[in-house]
């Protein structure tokens, strides 16, 4: 793909970077990335990937925008309340950059549909808000040999891990979700909005580095961020030979849905449901 004059101007601050250049920008315009979850993490990731001129961006989510989202999910505006999140997010990404082909997937991501969902994409960003979805994305990306970025946020802390085929996976570190009875109710947890911006932007950074093949990815490691102490720490984590997914004697050979409680708009536990992208 040849860049036209407008594209050369739009992407000039990337093109002048030695590691990117016009070739890198062209590569990016032909890449396809999927964001699962149009929430706190997916919002900044989607905005930056669109601005950067990623060729196709898929966005998967089942929810609608509500007032409690707006404190951190910066891709949604007050006027979007009640709208499908995928539509609201797609509108903003297209407004930032009409070059981008935004593909909306309004769906609950589950064991039955996730492999087909991720298959056409080059890189997956996990922007989900629950353990069930995070294990499902890890396992599905393993079976489909897809690279992905995991991130999680809670209160003032966040963590991010990049997983590519052959590197330490999420299950190497966390074998299984905590027992459902041990999960505190929604109202006990909160999160600093800007924290989501930090972690979601880091996920977009990893996605772009991956498609351009530049730098070192955050593989075989966890990066943790504490907003209160302003400490970033990178902790090296070797592959776990006893990992039930990618270890020497794997036990997991198919995808399953982990039932977990979901929250309603006011933060109460509601009903059991499948993982919500």
């Amino acid at each position, binding site marked *: 793909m040849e860049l036209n004059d407008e594209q050369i101007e739009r992407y000039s601050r990337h093109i002048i970077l030695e590691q990117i250049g016009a070739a890198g920008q062209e590569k990016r315009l032909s890449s396809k990335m999927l964001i699962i*979850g149009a*929430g*706190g*993490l997916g919002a900044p990731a989607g905005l930056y990937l669109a601005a950067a001129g990623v060729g196709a961006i898929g966005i998967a989510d089942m929810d609608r925008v509500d007032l409690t989202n707006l404190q*951190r*999910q910066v891709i949604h505006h007050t006027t979007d309340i009640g709208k499908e999140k995928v539509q609201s997010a797609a509108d903003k990404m297209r407004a930032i950059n009409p070059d981008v082909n935004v593909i909306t997937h309004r769906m609950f991501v589950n064991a039955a549909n996730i492999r087909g969902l991720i298959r056409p994409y080059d890189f997956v960003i996990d*922007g*989900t*808000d*629950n*353990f069930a979805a*995070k294990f499902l994305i890890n396992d599905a990306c393993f079976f489909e040999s897809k690279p992905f970025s995991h991130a*999680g*946020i*809670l209160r003032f*802390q*966040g*963590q991010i891990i990049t997983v590519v085929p052959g590197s330490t996976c999420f299950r*190497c*570190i*966390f*074998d299984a*979700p*905590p*027992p459902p009875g*041990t*999960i*505190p*109710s*929604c109202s006990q*947890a909160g*999160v600093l909005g800007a924290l*989501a911006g930090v972690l979601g932007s880091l996920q977009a950074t990893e996605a772009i580095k991956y498609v351009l093949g530049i730098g070192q990815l955050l593989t075989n490691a*966890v990066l943790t961020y504490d907003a209160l102490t302003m400490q970033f*720490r990178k*902790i*090296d*984590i*070797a592959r*776990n030979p*006893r990992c039930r997914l990618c270890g020497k004697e794997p036990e997991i050979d198919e995808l399953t849905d982990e039932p977990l409680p979901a*929250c309603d708009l006011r*933060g109460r536990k509601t009903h059991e449901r499948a993982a919500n992208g």
Partner: protein
Amino acid sequence: MKLTINGQEVDGVASNTVTDLLVEQKVKTPVYVSVELNGEILDRNQLDSATLKDGDRVEFLYFMGGGQWN
């Protein structure tokens, strides 16, 4: 005993096992924590038996869900 816990040197640790260390370090929700000892992730059923010695490096890695609840 001196350990390095989450990158910080901690002197005067009394715990002999990882399970005791989680209590001593006042980890509120141990069920949310995965433990790396000297670069190796421990199985949950090893926490009681994994013994600590001077100079060990321990990382507590927390499960983090998303922005809504955890």
